């Protein structure tokens, strides 16, 4: 594979930029270069930031935010309480208690399904692990709350999202 264009020049530049510490460094040229560069930024004025609460960024596809539990066509939760997500979770923040499912197509369903959002690291492992495609990370990122207790989402909350 050929190097991407510019990679070679960059490498060479880095080589010349590392000066011998015993050599006398001259500051004049680098300082002038830096000043010109910053002046360009002042004059150009194209901020990379946004006015956050007024203007919201649209998250990129695949952004990992708050979780939700999905329902199937009959409106039942898809989750079969297999514990794979809580096993996969590196932060150990999913708490599941299973109960017998009243339906014929599956043995179990969760009686309790709590995710501690304060411990979650939003890695998406739960979503990866789930065999039934029942849990999913939504792109919702602005999720403040006043107490820690509010940040433990139970089954109803997760299903309603």
């Amino acid at each position, binding site marked *: 594979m050929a190097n991407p264009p510019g990679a070679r020049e960059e490498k060479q530049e880095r080589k010349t930029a590392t000066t011998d510490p015993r050599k006398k460094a001259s500051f004049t040229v680098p300082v002038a270069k830096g*000043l010109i560069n910053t002046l360009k930024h002042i004059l150009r004025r194209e901020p*990379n*930031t946004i006015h956050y609460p007024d203007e919201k960024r649209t998250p990129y596809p695949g952004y990992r935010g708050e979780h939700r539990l999905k329902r199937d066509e009959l409106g039942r939760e898809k989750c079969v309480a297999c514990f794979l997500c809580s096993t996969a979770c590196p932060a150990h923040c999913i708490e599941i208690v299973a109960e017998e499912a009243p339906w014929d197509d599956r043995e179990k369903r969760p009686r309790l399904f709590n995710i501690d959002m304060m411990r979650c690291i939003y890695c998406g492992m739960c979503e990866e692990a789930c065999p039934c495609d029942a849990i999913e990370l939504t792109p919702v990122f602005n999720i403040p709350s006043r107490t820690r207790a509010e940040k433990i989402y139970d089954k109803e909350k997760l299903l309603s999202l």
Partner: protein
Amino acid sequence: MTDPLYSILIAVIKAVIIFAVILQIVPLLVYFERKISAWIQDRIGPNRVGPIGLLQPLADVIKLAFKEDLTPQGADKWIYRLAPVLVYAPAVLAFTVIPVGIDLQVASFDVGVVFLLTISGFSVYGLAFGGWASNNKYSLLGGLRASAQMISYEVAMGLSIIAIMMTAETVDLNEIIRQQWGSGTLGLLEWNLFKQPIAAVVFIIAAFAETNRLPFDLAECEAELIGGFHTEYTGLKFATFFMGEYVAMITMSGLMVTLFLGGWSVPWVEIPTSPSMVDMALSIGFFSVKLFALLFFYIWIRWTLPRFRYDQLMGIGWKVFIPVSLVNLGLTAVAGVLGWKWLIPLP
């Protein structure tokens, strides 16, 4: 008219107005600094408080005023309290001799430059005392660095001012300004910036070190000294330090405008012998424009350059600036004897 009470009254009024104006420039400067740094870093900058964020410095001050005023355990209380004032007061005092308009300054001395140098040297006590009294090793190191740095750069600065005094043959700042006025197409070249380029460069760089501004702000480097001499200061005491730094910046810029950029005069515009109110206002305007240009330069440098290493700082100070300004003194003397106006004789 010659009543002493009358002249005292005039002096007091001048002092109050000029101080009030400087104190108003400080928040403005803080705002500019935040805005310009934001532009340099491709951010937006403060824009929430007041129209286009203009009231942001006020909000900052209110925040600082409501902070708890801590005195660290084991601190030397009186010196600890004195230090911020010792930084702030000399900076303001030094401004009194800088002419902001035609012959307009709070205190007119014949020895303006010498007074200014003496007084601005005092601010090092504030930094050193603040570092010493906080009973914190980082603060102490910051204070030590500040004193070493200011002492070294004061020499270079003094030497470059001597060169100016030699060409001007006076220490009266108004007289120095008058000599920098020129008419004709090359009027601009009368500025000491062109008559004494070496002194100007040395002075400008030394002024950065003297005011503890960024490429030389080793006294407060956040990375190693967690804020240096003001680590332990909170609330309004910290604000006083902060204000002192900005006022020192304004004073130094004012001095540079006076010494090198022709002060309140502008080439091609005749200096009136008996100035009217309009002339006065115009001259103050010229001075402010130059002052803000220099302040912009200060801010621009700050957000461009990283901090120097301590040995680099000392190396530049002792091994480059002092010899260079000594050589410059010699050149100036030779030029003076030969009757050259510019160091490099122009066609």
